[in-house]
């Protein structure tokens, strides 16, 4: 049913109709509204779920690890410092092959303290074995949450899936959104059946020591599963489209790439602004396009290469930075073309850290800069007046 909802509320609805057996979370801005709404559903009896209050994000993640080990569908959400506190447990959840669905309401990481949005927090979880999907708008957030449960729990995958939505920009925005019916979800998402789970009738040890003879194989298996997920995701997407009647992109969205000479690659809510500029510049006769990355892990290398191979000038807009190197997405896309014929010129931009606004003007400037020398790591919309230069100790 179509309704005008706040992003957090819409996500809470999406989680509710997936009927998790256990929800555990600890409040942190801008994630709080999501679990507040879920707690209200539980309190009013609309959702029959064990809602477990805890004293930290580490505990929240540990609780859902436990409930998933028992074979119960589970959900949590966090942001920023909270997500980093969960990190140690999230590595375990991935290593134990438990199908958690977690929402990251993307927020900058301290210090200095910033409650505002960028994508540094989920970027820090990049290598944890967690599948990461980034959403552009609230509808995509709802749809990809349903998809996330199905993907995580697919017996061929069994990995945690994190849906990353920009804090405030999406979590606190109101937009028209179509929430699927519970019956649609029931036919898309079968009940969770784990082959191996903790069960007093049939005891089993989980989380065993794995010395140098065995550990590497566990990592290899996750890596192979990530590759297999590239094949599985389009399959599940077909099911989703058939059941809901709504299109869904799961790897990336190509926007006006046909005959494009210049393309900006972006991720999350800023993609809408980029597409708007693409339309304006196309009207002025410029051959420009955009690519919105959704699945960051697994990184759909082949599919991206096919989509981008004829584009001579590419700009990558990162809303996070690997300090001491460059934008993390930028390095991925550089690597993508390494050794391939006709490598494009790829420039890297860092923008929107701590929710510094990215307006149409900034996107246009990026497109213009693609004509010049290749840029590795340029900060856009930087306020140079605040910079003091090298600090002097006298």
């Amino acid at each position, binding site marked *: 049913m179509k309704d*005008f909802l*706040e992003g957090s509320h819409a996500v809470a609805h999406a989680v509710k109709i997936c009927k998790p057996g256990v929800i555990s979370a600890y409040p942190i*801005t801008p994630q709080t509204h999501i679990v507040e709404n879920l707690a209200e559903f539980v309190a009013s009896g609309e959702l029959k779920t064990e809602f477990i209050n805890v004293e930290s994000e580490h505990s929240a993640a540990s609780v859902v690890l436990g409930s998933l080990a028992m074979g119960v569908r589970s959900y949590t959400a966090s942001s920023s410092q909270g997500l980093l506190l969960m990190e140690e447990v999230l590595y375990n959840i991935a290593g134990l092959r438990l199908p958690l669905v977690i929402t990251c309401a993307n927020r900058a990481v301290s210090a200095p303290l910033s*409650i*505002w949005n960028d994508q540094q927090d989920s970027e820090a979880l990049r290598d944890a074995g967690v599948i990461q999907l980034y959403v552009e*708008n609230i509808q995509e957030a709802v749809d990809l949450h349903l998809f996330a449960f199905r993907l995580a729990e697919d017996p061929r995958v069994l990995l945690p899936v994190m849906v990353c939505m920009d804090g*405030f*920009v999406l979590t*606190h*925005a*109101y*937009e*028209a959104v179509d929430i699927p019916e519970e019956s649609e979800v029931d036919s898309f998402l079968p009940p969770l059946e784990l082959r191996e789970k903790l069960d007093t009738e049939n005891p089993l040890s989980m989380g065993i020591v794995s010395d140098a003879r065995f550990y590497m194989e566990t990592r290899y298996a996750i890596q192979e599963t990530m590759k297999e997920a590239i094949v599985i995701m389009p399959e599940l997407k077909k099911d989703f489209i058939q059941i809901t009647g709504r299109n869904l992109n799961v790897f990336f969205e190509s926007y006006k790439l046909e005959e494009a000479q210049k393309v900006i690659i972006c991720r999350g*809510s*800023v*993609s*809408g*602004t980029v*597409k*708007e500029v693409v339309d304006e510049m196309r009207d002025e006769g410029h051959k420009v396009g955009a690519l919105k990355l959704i699945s960051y892990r697994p990184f759909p290398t082949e599919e991206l290469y096919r989509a981008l191979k004829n584009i001579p000038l590419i700009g990558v807009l990162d809303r996070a930075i690997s300090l001491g190197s460059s934008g993390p997405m930028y390095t991925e896309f550089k690597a993508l073309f390494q050794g391939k014929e006709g490598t494009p010129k790829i420039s890297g931009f860092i923008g929107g850290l701590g929710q510094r*606004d*990215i*307006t*149409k003007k900034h996107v246009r400037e990026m497109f213009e800069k693609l004509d010049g020398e290749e840029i590795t790591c340029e900060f856009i919309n930087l306020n140079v007046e605040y910079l003091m230069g090298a600090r002097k100790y006298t």
Partner: protein
Amino acid sequence: MRQISIHARAGQGAITIASLLGTAAFLEGKQALAFPHFGAARMGAPMDSFVRISEQEIRIRSQIYEPNYILVVDDTLLRGYNFFQNMIPGGASFINLSEQGYLPEAEGISVYCIPADDIAENLFGKRMGNTALLGAFSAGTGEVSLDSLQKAIDKKFDGKIADVNKKAIEEGYNYFKKKYT
């Protein structure tokens, strides 16, 4: 696309009226996007919320710098910054202000002062003029109808809170009609 920015202090209901405005537009079959931008995360700190209304899909996510309309829920904010300076010519601004008070220079735009807090105080004893201001906005711009705003209230609130706010919207609407048309 019409862009509206709402200036208030945290706790004065700027997000509420942004969402009501968006909901009303949604109920009229239009596309809408409403979103806040917080300053310091505490009550009383200046904050903004924004609404975009369009007949086409709204994709742009940046803040609004050149609004067609502005709503100022707390007139003391006007002392620090001239909100009118970047408005689109021909735009309209709605200020929660009784007769006496400071107003910055405004050129090429209409400035309407609505004693929204007084209206609210008479109705329910609290100086929460946000919804009354929204009623005046409806009367002055016609972007959303009074009826849609009332329906939006019913979607968001129940009981007495819904009743008094619907009344506040109506009185804000009538005040504008009486004074400015």
